[in-house]
């Protein structure tokens, strides 16, 4: 009982720390996950809190909700549009990456080739949580975000399978390419099969029930159940969760009412937020900074290997694939983002922690993995926003920015004028000064209004954007009013549900219209 209470206390403290960090990063330009790692490092250095990070904890407890949430949100249509680049990066890309890293660290650090391949595999899976969160904030093109997220979903599975095959090869001292490929296919496709089967069952049940409590419960069972069942069958648990999330999110959600959809998606977003927060805090807490500094040489080689392999995979493999027939073009600016956004995180650390005790140079591999994760998070994670800005991927249509700027100035000017009016009314501002300032503010307001009219005349599509925005505002107000009516018992729960469902559906329709009619950003190169 005491042990349980101690664990509960630690978890609550970590969640509180996560909440504080989340509040703090709103004020500083630092990705949330990077800030969590830094706080975790501080906690570990100061020995404030001791918590053992085990691979099971990351792989079986935190990873399923993270992967499930990402897959659940990913639309088939978006995935289909980017499937080829995603698969090229996630399957041959990870294999190539593992081999390149293995070659470099084998020569640079002096590891045996087998052990080097184990390291290459465990560090090849990308973990772009920090990057994807930034994409959402900065309004990066949706297709690029899908490519980054999709690659990470599928390459986790590939990396884990190669990692296990490499471990077996090191343990037995032999490796057959044919057996290796067969095992790879069995574990990967088997995992996907388990996930698809369970996903279909859950989707069928979800489509026939409209009760968000039951649907939340079913998807929770699905996310963790798919992982556990596949692992029990010695198949890929990660790929099972990916398939289960994709199927249930795309097919199961078709029959959901908008309210259920909103509640269910919010639940998974929250669960992913909690898992992410704990994973990255624990990553920080699990890194022994003194050891990292002591082994800076091998870590530097590992970081270089990871960057070189990423460059070869992203630029080389995508270029090659581009030349080999019908392929979705990936613009150069996107390739730069894929290269620098290839951060490493939870999967790499979990695999490093799960290395068997008898593996030669196990501790060094762990330190190298921790060092690479730390470098990618601190160096790449903190600079990716500058790269996105430099590449022009965060630029919004100039007329919309101009409209917002004018609106902001007008809003501020009117607030200033209101305040001066109050001062004058209270007798704190003399008549002459008030008259002069009022005149000045009136002129500024007139000027801004006239510029706004001119802007609307030049860019007629702004009118449509404003109409859509205003309609959304009105619907939000309608929804709020229904909540008030329910609290005042003017309407029943049943009528409330019916009417809010209708409003949610209209909001969804406006999102679709907005997405389709919004002026796009300047042409991408």
């Amino acid at each position: 009982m005491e042990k349980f209470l101690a664990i509960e206390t630690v978890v609550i403290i970590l969640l509180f720390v996560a909440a504080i960090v989340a509040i703090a990063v709103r004020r500083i330009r630092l990705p949330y996950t990077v800030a969590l790692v830094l706080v975790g490092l501080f906690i570990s250095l100061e020995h404030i809190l001791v918590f053992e990070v085990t691979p099971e904890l990351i792989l079986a407890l935190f990873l399923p909700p993270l992967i499930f949430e990402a897959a659940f949100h990913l639309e088939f249509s978006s995935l289909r549009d980017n499937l080829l680049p995603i698969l090229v990066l996630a399957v041959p890309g990870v294999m190539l990456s593992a081999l390149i890293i293995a070659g470099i660290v084998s020569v640079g650090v002096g590891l045996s080739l087998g052990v080097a391949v184990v390291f290459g595999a465990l560090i090849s899976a990308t973990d772009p949580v920090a990057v994807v969160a930034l994409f959402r904030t900065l309004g990066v093109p949706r297709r690029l975000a899908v490519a980054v997220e999709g690659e990470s979903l599928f390459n986790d599975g590939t990396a884990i399978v190669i990692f296990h095959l490499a471990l077996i090869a090191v343990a037995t001292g032999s490796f057959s390419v044919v057996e290796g490929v067969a095992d790879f296919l069995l574990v990967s496709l088997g995992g996907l099969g388990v996930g698809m089967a369970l996903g279909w069952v859950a989707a069928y049940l979800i489509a026939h029930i409209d009760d968000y409590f039951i649907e939340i419960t079913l998807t929770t069972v699905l996310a963790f159940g798919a992982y556990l069942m596949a692992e029990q069958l010695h198949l890929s648990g990660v790929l099972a969760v990916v398939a289960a999330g994709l199927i249930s999110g795309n097919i199961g959600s078709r029959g959901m009412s908008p309210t259920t959809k909103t509640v269910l998606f919010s639940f998974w977003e929250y669960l992913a937020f909690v898992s992410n927060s704990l994973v990255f805090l624990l990553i920080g807490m699990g890194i022994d900074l003194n050891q990292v500094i002591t082994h800076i040489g091998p870590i530097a080689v590992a970081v270089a290997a990871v960057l070189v392999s990423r460059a070869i995979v992203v630029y080389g493999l995508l270029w090659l694939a581009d030349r080999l027939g019908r392929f979705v073009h990936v613009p150069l600016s996107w390739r730069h983002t894929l290269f620098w956004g290839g951060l490493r995180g939870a999967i790499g650390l979990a695999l490093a922690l799960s290395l068997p005790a008898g593996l030669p140079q196990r501790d060094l591999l762990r330190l190298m993995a921790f060092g690479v994760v730390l470098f990618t998070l601190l160096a790449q994670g903190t600079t990716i926003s500058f790269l996105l800005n430099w590449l022009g991927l965060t630029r919004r249509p100039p007329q919309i920015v101009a409209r917002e700027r004018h609106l902001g100035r007008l809003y501020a000017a009117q607030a200033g004028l209101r305040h001066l009016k109050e001062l004058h009314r209270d007798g704190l501002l003399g008549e002459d000064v008030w008259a002069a300032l009022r005149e000045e503010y009136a002129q500024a307001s007139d000027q801004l209004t006239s510029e706004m009219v001119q802007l609307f005349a030049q860019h007629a599509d702004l009118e449509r954007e404003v109409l859509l925005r205003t309609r959304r505002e009105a619907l939000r107000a309608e929804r709020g009013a229904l909540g008030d009516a329910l609290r005042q018992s003017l309407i029943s729960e049943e009528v409330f549900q019916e009417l809010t469902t209708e409003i949610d559906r209209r909001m969804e329709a406006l999102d679709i219209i907005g997405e389709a009619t919004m002026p796009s950003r300047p042409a991408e190169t």
Partner: protein
Amino acid sequence: MGPIVCATRGGEVSRRTQERAIALARERETPLIFFFVADTGFAGPTNEPLSEALDDELARLGRTMLYIARTRAREQGISAHSVARHGTVSEVMENFLREVDASLLVMGTPQENSGHQSFKPGEITEFAEQIRAATGVEVLVVS
């Protein structure tokens, strides 16, 4: 002479298109009708309740834009009408032009960077030709 029909969807050149149509209505002394088609084809397959909401919201957006266009015409001394219909743009437009026995259709050229379009910039001339051939109505494309 039949009315001038000004097709509008709120795109980048819609304001210029409307102004041109108003000027022509004044010059030719013919009635002016602002026309909007709620075509939800861009959304792809969606479930029925969402499809209904989409259609309804798009039509609502269209009606508001038509109201603004009418007001704009009134301010310039032209009393215009407006009509919003649902369906596929080309089909609905051809039917409407025949129905009102229009003398001229005024429409804008879609811009490269302005989201989903019923037609791509290069296809507008082809579409204008198609309308002209099918209905015999003169088509003016404003860019």
